[in-house]
């Protein structure tokens, strides 16, 4: 099973502490070497992006930043055997934030990616 983890948080006024970044790199390396992490990257603030919207039959393109209070911070794509395994890796990731960046708050949504198993013919 594949899971996409999306990290959302209020954009911080200061850059993340270097110790946190180092710890995240270490955890990412560990998860990659465990064969669980397929892909991960950080996302630039939405000010650098744009939104293409379809509403009432009309397409519109709006440059960022988006109005939402929380920004998408990063994503990670895991290949694991259960939701709990994806949750466990994500918990380890969030603990690093708790331990190394005081006062930081955010949400990591763990979402299952549809795969061939969801479209398999009936046995």
């Amino acid at each position: 099973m594949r899971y996409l983890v999306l990290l959302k948080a209020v954009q911080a006024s200061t850059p993340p502490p270097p110790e946190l970044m180092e710890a995240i790199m270490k955890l990412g390396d560990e998860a990659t070497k465990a064969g669980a992490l397929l892909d991960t990257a950080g996302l630039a603030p939405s000010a650098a992006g744009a939104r293409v919207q379809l509403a009432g039959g009309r397409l519109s393109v709006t440059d960022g930043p988006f109005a939402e209070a929380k920004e998408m911070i990063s994503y990670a794509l895991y290949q694991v055997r259960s939701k709990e395994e994806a949750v466990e890796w994500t918990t380890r990731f969030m603990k690093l934030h708790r331990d190394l960046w005081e006062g930081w708050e955010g949400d990591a949504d763990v979402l299952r990616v549809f795969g061939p198993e969801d479209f398999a013919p009936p046995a």
Partner: protein
Amino acid sequence: MTATDPLRATQRAIEAVWRIESARLIAGLARIVHDVGLAEELAQDALVVALEQWPKTGVPENPAPWLMATAKHRAIDLLRRRSTYERKLEELGRELSVQQAAEPDLDAALDDHIGDDLLRLIFTACHPVLTTEARVALTLRLLGGLTTDEIARAFLVSEPTVAQRIVRAKRTLASKRVPFEMPAPEELAGRLSSVLEVIYLIFNEGYSATAGDDWMRPALCEEALRLGRILSGLMPDEAEVQGLVALMEIQASRMPARTGPSGEPILLLDQDRRRWDRLLIGRGLQALERAESLGVGPYTLQAAIAACHARALSSEDTDWARIAALYQVLAHISPSPVVELNRAVAVGMAFGPAKGLEVVDALRSERALEGYAHLPAVRGDLLAKLGRLDEARQEFERAASLTRNERERSLFLERLT
């Protein structure tokens, strides 16, 4: 959001931790007790303690060191009762006191060895003193953290059979005094090829089955890929490790397109390539590039061939000349009539059916291909393309009579009309 049964939720969380940590736990313990079977029992004991305690206390902050410390205490208890193991007990005591002195850094102490320990565990589980079946079962058990029940379901054998295999394998390792060590440099190539063979066998067991049989079969492909990715992290400079990973990533990328709506197999050239998994293709091509920069070997060549298909956006775009050339190199370094037959197909596609037929006809006296349905099938296809329809029909009849696979038979019979 729905509330879940808290007990069940904790159990599933423990299973997840176990899945992530079990191989490293067993590997670390095996370094200390010098016995893979015993190491696995100790790790299992620690799991049992966790299953008893964690639902009451909650999952500890750092579950991996918790499991390791628990298993080591079990080891001490056990070894104390075995006087012949006094020397090991001493070692273990030293090990523990060192780690206890550095308590906050228990994790780091574990990390320092863990890569080496995991490699030793892989090489031990795939040791040539074991039968291939035993290597496969032991690898899935020790490195994949699969239960005997899961392994049994994946290989469509009974659970006691798998349990037996694993018990015997552990006994063999102990009785032949297989050390928990990396192979000597002069043995490495041979021992590594045994490891790669086991991983690819697990992959193929899952890959060759048709969809819908059992959920465990696709899971075997995932498991083999995971093992390959782990090995690739541990041995990043071994060409064939990267080659095998590349091959499996690319083959797995086709899984969404390999079967039709009612589960019937779809041949490579007929697959809807839009359904191929681009992420896996990208990973496969990356691994292939790394493999090719390191050397050449059978897995790397097969991956290079698979990559020719992966790079072609439609089957018409396939670079058959390159595939034919790669098969030629493959036939040179690892000669086999089946490789030669595949080369015939590629030659036929690249340079015309008459050229392909020359390669096939050179194979007709090949003993190893007697009774191999794909020989007449390939020949029939080339003859049909040359307009020699009567001869082609004979070949397809022969192919249909030789195959034991129903779906294949109907494919061949379709060619008769």
